[in-house]
Structures are given as C-alpha cells and as structure tokens.
C-alpha cells in the first residue's frame, strides 16, 4: 500500500491561524499599553507642571502699586522630585517679563483664567513641555493679566515611557509565546479525535469490515457515516465475489465431472480402437479444462482469501497426507507412485486450510504431470531449522529456465513440450506461501533427474 501524499495540514493551518491571531493581539496589546503609558506619563508631567504654575500664580501679589512674586521653593523643587529634568519658568505681566527666563517662548495658545494651555517645543537643545496659567491681579485698582509658564524637559519621562515600552514589549512577546504554545496545543487536541479514529481503523484485522464505532465528534459524524456505508458496501461486494467464485467452481466442476463420468462409461463400452482413442482424448481434454478451470478459480480464491487470511491452526502432516491421498488416483493413471512422509510429532502453522491445501495440491500435481510414467514423487514434511514441505520428482526438471520467472502468472517453462497447463500452479503456491510468511523454493532434484519444489515456513 502506498501512503497518500498529504496536501497541506489541518494542524499546521490551524496553528498558523491561531498564531497569527496571537501575533495581532500581541501587537495590539503592545500598542495599547504603550500609548496608555505614554499618555499617562504625559498626564503626570502635565499635572505636576500645572501644580507648579498654580503655586507660582498663588504667590503673586501686588505691592506698592506693582505686581511682585515670592517664588515658592516648592514650585520648582517639586519638579525635581520625580525626575532630574531641566526646569524653566517665566512670569509675564501685561507682556513684560516680571521674572524668569526671558527667552522662554510664549505658549502656542494663550491661556485663560479657566483654562491652562499646554505646549511642546524645542528650547535650549531639548524638547520641553510647558504649561501656562493665566491670572488677573489688580494693582491699585487696575487689573493686570499675568501669565505664568513653567516648562520642563522630557528626558526623564521619555526614560519612563521607554521603560514602559520595554515592559510592554516583553508582555506582548510573552503573550505571543504563551498564546502560540497554547495554539499548538489547541491544534493538536482539536485533531486528537481524528488521530483516535485513524488508530481505530489501522488497528483492525484485515478481514474486519464491521462499521467504525470510535467516539466521534459531531463534525466527523458525516465522514464516519460515509466511511461506514462504504465499508458495508465493500463487505457486501466482497461477499458477493466470494459467493460467485464458490458458485462458479461448483457450476463448472460438476457438469465437467458428469461429462467425464459419462465419457468413461462410453469409453468402456466402445469397441473400435479409433473410437476409443477419440474418446480417451476427449476425456483428457475434459481433464485439462477441468484442471484449468479449477486453477483459475483457485487463483481467484487465493487472491481473494490472502487479502484477509484466516487464522486456523493447520496440522501440516494431516494436510499433506490428505492432499497426497486425493491425488493418488490421478497419479495412478500414469503409474506414478506418490510417497508421502510425515513425522509423528507433526508441527502446526496458523493459516488458511483451503489455501495451503490448494498450494500443496498444485505442487504435487505439477510433479506428477511432469514425471515420466512409472516413476516416483516424494512428498516430505520435515522439521529442522524450519518447516519444509518438499515435493521431488524424477521428471524433466526445470531445464535452464529462470526460476523466479516461472512463479509469475501464466508463465510456463520452455520444457513443457506437449504437456498442457495454464501457468498458474506455481503462482498459486507462491502467493499462498507468501501470505503465510513462507517462501516457495524451486531447485533441481539433488539426487538425480527431476525437480524439487518446496514450501519453507520459518519456525515461528
């Protein structure tokens, strides 16, 4: 049997799809975490900047008709508590710098009393985040607008968000690895029922055509149903073939036997030598066709039964004895003696009685067929290093023929001359031997003329 070439793998596809989903989710997780972290970090900086600017705004007061500021220590020191970023500030009253860094740019958007404004820009070689707060302070009854801006570089924050990004990357990667491992497991476990069924089918004996009854997941029920219906149709069809063969054998042999019996009777009654000759040829022709038909049917049966070999315990001595006995009458016609030797403690093999019998019959039949009149065919059952049934005749031998080729179907040797045959006898014997784990050996008779054909079983 050749293995089916796989086109794609469900497991791989399932795994790849799940892994792809996991990868997408990981990237999503990473992006979400990072952007959340970035906005949280930014919000934190904005919050502390706003607190600083507000505390400066709260310290504004008017003195002697002018606005003045007592910069609170905490306003700037609080900015130094979370990181070591550079800090800049500027207080502007009606467009004039009151104190702080005079070159600190104004905010993108002018803040109002109710709304602080935030801007980001480059200042003194670094990116800074700046919050601006507006206050109205009255000096001698005249309200002045004061704008307080506090700015801070963002190196510490970017370090934090970098660290968070690192964590997010690790989390995403970890998630991906875990999810991938899980999808591997999921793909495997999803396909486990399939494996279980495969196993159930593989484990079956060759003749086991019962419907499949493994636990089946819903998705596989239609498949199993289809498979079971196929198995039952196959079983029916095999049964029909077997019946047909048996029927055919019966239908062919019985009329031939009848005709032959009638011909014998007629032959005995006939007086004229030329009539008797004709009748004998007729009988021979009947024999040949009955043997050929038998062999054809035997061969069909052999191919059929070896597929699902039965496992009877076969007593080889018995089968050899019986086969020899059956062939004795036919051999008697040629005055050929069949000498059958079997040991007392006969070995048994497991196998198909009918097939073994057919194999031995064909071998002995050949031996008789290719023997000269008045000779001996030795059938021996021996047990030594292995079990050997050998059939030796004193006939013409195989000549120089290719011995392996003779085992082929319908192959006949060059030595057959007038002897009729179908070329199936050795084929049957060979196939049966192989089905039983034995081998068919063809060799010349070691003690003189003739051939020796053996079936050799290994000792279990």
């Amino acid at each position, binding site marked *: 049997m050749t293995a089916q070439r796989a086109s794609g793998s469900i497991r791989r596809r399932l795994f790849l799809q799940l892994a792809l989903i996991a990868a997408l989710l990981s990237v999503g997780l990473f992006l979400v975490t990072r952007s959340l972290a970035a906005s949280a970090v930014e919000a934190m900086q904005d919050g502390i900047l706003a607190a600083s600017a507000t505390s400066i705004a709260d310290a504004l007061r008017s003195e002697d008709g002018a606005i*003045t*500021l*007592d*910069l*609170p*220590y*905490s*306003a*700037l*020191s609080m*900015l*130094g508590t979370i990181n*070591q*970023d*550079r*800090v*800049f500030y500027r207080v502007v009253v009606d467009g004039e710098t*009151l*104190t*702080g860094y*005079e070159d600190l740019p104004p905010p993108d958007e002018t803040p109002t009393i109710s709304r602080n404004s935030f801007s980001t820009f480059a200042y*003194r*070689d*670094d990116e800074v985040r700046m919050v601006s707060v507006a206050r109205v302070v009255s000096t001698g009854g005249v309200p002045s607008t004061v704008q307080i801006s506090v700015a801070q570089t963002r190196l510490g924050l970017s370090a934090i968000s970098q660290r968070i990004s690192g964590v997010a990357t690790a989390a995403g990667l970890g998630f991906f690895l875990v999810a991938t491992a899980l999808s591997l497991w999921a793909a495997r476990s999803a396909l486990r029922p399939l494996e279980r069924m495969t196993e159930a089918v593989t484990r079956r004996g060759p003749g086991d055509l019962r419907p499949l009854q493994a636990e089946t997941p819903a998705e596989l029920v239609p498949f199993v149903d289809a498979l079971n219906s196929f198995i039952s149709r196959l079983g029916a069809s095999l049964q029909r073939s077997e019946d047909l063969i048996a029927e055919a054998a019966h239908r062919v042999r019985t009329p031939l036997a009848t005709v032959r019996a009638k011909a014998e009777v007629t032959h005995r009654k006939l007086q004229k030598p030329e009539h008797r000759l004709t009748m004998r040829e007729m009988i021979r022709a009947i024999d040949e066709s009955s043997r050929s038909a038998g062999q054809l049917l035997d061969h069909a049966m052999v191919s059929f039964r070896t597929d699902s070999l039965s496992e009877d315990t076969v007593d080889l001595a018995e089968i050899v004895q019986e086969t020899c006995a059956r062939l004795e009458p036919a051999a008697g016609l040629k005055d050929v003696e069949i000498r059958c030797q079997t040991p007392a403690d006969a070995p048994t093999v497991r196998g198909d009685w009918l097939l073994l019998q057919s194999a031995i019959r064909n071998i002995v039949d050949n031996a008789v067929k290719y023997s000269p009149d008045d000779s001996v065919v030795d059938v021996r059952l021996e047990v030594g290093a292995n079990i050997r049934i050998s059939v030796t005749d004193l006939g013409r031998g195989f000549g120089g023929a290719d011995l392996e080729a003779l085992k082929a179907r319908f192959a006949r040797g060059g030595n057959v001359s007038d002897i009729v045959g179908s070329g199936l006898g050795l084929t049957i014997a060979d196939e049966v031997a192989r089905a039983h784990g034995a081998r068919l050996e063809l060799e010349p008779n070691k003690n003189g003329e003739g051939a020796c054909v053996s079936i050799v079983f290994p000792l279990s």
Partner: protein
Amino acid sequence: MRLDRLSAVLIGWLAVLAAWTLPATALEIEERLVLEAQTPRSVLRILSTADRAPFEPILKAFQAENPDVTIDYTIAGTSDVMKAVSEDGAVFDLVISSAMDLQTKLANDGFARTYRSAATDSLPDWARWRDQLFAFTQEPVVLILSDAAFAGQVVPTTRDELIELLRDEPERFMGKVGTYDVRTSGFGYLMATQDSRVSEAIWRLLEVIGRLDARLYCCSGDMLRDIRSGKLAVAYNVLGSYAAAELRETGGFRIVHMKDFANVMLRTVLILDRAENVADAQRMVDFLATLGRRPDVVAASGLPPIDDAALRGNVALRPIRLGPGLLVYLDRLKRRSFLRNWEASITQE
C-alpha cells in the same frame, strides 16, 4: 576660601541674573596654576572657585595617575565663573565650584555635559544631578565660639539654645556676634536661604543677633580673625572645613556642630558642554567622585569627601539638595524679598 574673599559680589550676582543682557567682559582671574606634565599629551583646563591650598594635592595626585596630562587650573570668584561660562563662552573642560545654586543653574541652562561611569554611579543619589553635576565634598556649616568667651561656660548646640543664651545675656554678647552679610556673600546667601527653608528659627535668631548689633562679614576668614582677636564671641554659619583648617593652625576657638540641623554644602564639578578634552575631564570627575578612597589625598587637601555613612550616622546633617529647588533663590524677585526680610530682621528697622 576664595568664595569668601569676594568683594562687590552683589554687583556680580546681579550681572549673572541679568544674564545675557550685559556685554561680554574678560574673566577676572584671581590665580592661575599650571601643572606641567612630564610628557605632555593633553591639557586639562579647569575653572574653579576653590583655593590653591586644598586643591593642589588633589591635582598632583591626579597627575601622578595621569602623568601625561598638563593641568591648567584657573581660580576665579563664583559669580565670575558663572558669567564666564554662561555669557562669555569661556572655554574650559571642567567647572568646579562651591556655589551649588550657580552650578545647578549652569547644568539646568544646558552648559553641562552628561557623563555616567561606575565611579559616578557609586555616588549617593543626593550627590549628583542629571549625571551632569557631581558633588565630591560634603562640608557642614558650623557655629564658632571663641575660647575666651566660652571658657567654662555652657555651650549651645541648637539654634533655640543659642537664641536663649543670646537673649538672656545681651550685655555679654553685645557687638560680639558675627555672621555673613548675605547681601555681599553668595555663600552666606545660600546658607541663609537654606536655613530659612528648614526652620523658622533663623528669623528669630536674626532678630536676636540684630538686636545685639551683629557684625556682618563678607568672608569666613575675617570672621575667624575677629574670633581669635576676641572681637567676636560667636560666629554663625562658618564653613566647617575652613574653620577646621584654621583651628589646626592657630586655635583659640571651638567648632560646634549644631544638633537641630546643620546644612551641608556640596562642592560640585561639571564637565562643560564645550569641553575640548572630554576624556581627561571625565577621568578627573571619576577621580573626584572616588576621592574618599584616597585617604592620603583627603588628608593633604583637608576637604571632606562624600561619605554617605557619615550622613546617615548623624541625622542633623542635611546636605543641600541639588536640583531645581536651588534655582528658586536665584530668582530676582525672590532674592529681593529675601534680602528685604533679612535686612528687616537684622537691622531692626
């Protein structure tokens, strides 16, 4: 202390605060020390406010380890240093100063170069800022009492005790209490602002010593001279390392470490953004950061190195925190209002 010998600092200070508005002027050099290398390969140019005496041993030790570096050590006043760097674009490799506020401003305004090494990482967190400003000494501020005035007397160890003592015996201390004139001394200003940040007691103390007709000084040296001569009985806020050196030489007074709190000044170094010899500058920063591992150099210079354990052992010692908080008292309006309060307390107007 160079820092203490400044004259007309106020003008310099205002010039610094007015920043880029004034025209550039040449750096006013007080002293220049060039240590020629035996096989000169490079020159390390240092602009410093620290005197030659405590620093020469350090420079020599550095040169012993780096014999091919010529050291060009320029000494100037704190505000001159600030101005030279931030306005005149003077080219040096390192700036060393005891004016923590001005050093912080230099780093904050982008004149410092970032540097990190195992040596700088070994500094405690409070001794570095932004990996740009590195402290290498910790110098507590102390109270000086003259031996003559306090022979066999109770010694005050907190500000409250000192206030009580001065208040109880005005005739004994009249005209005999000295402290910095914060209007002219940058160091005095830094210490006074830090005092006010930590405790309200400073204002009461100023009032008391104001009532006692306090003498105001520009520099530690003058204060110690008057202590020794008997003109002063008490000198408040004197740099301990300086006083210790004087005491070893002359005697005549005692150093009191305040038990309520004592500000600790950190002398800092930064690598200039425009440094030309960055490699040697970094080597010098590493050298200074690990000064505590060279007891012989420490002994020769008399500058107390960074010692986290000593600070943890004495909770009263408060190192002045590097960072943007120091910028607050450099604010023009803040300075004005602080000086006004100070004057009001001390002159009893």
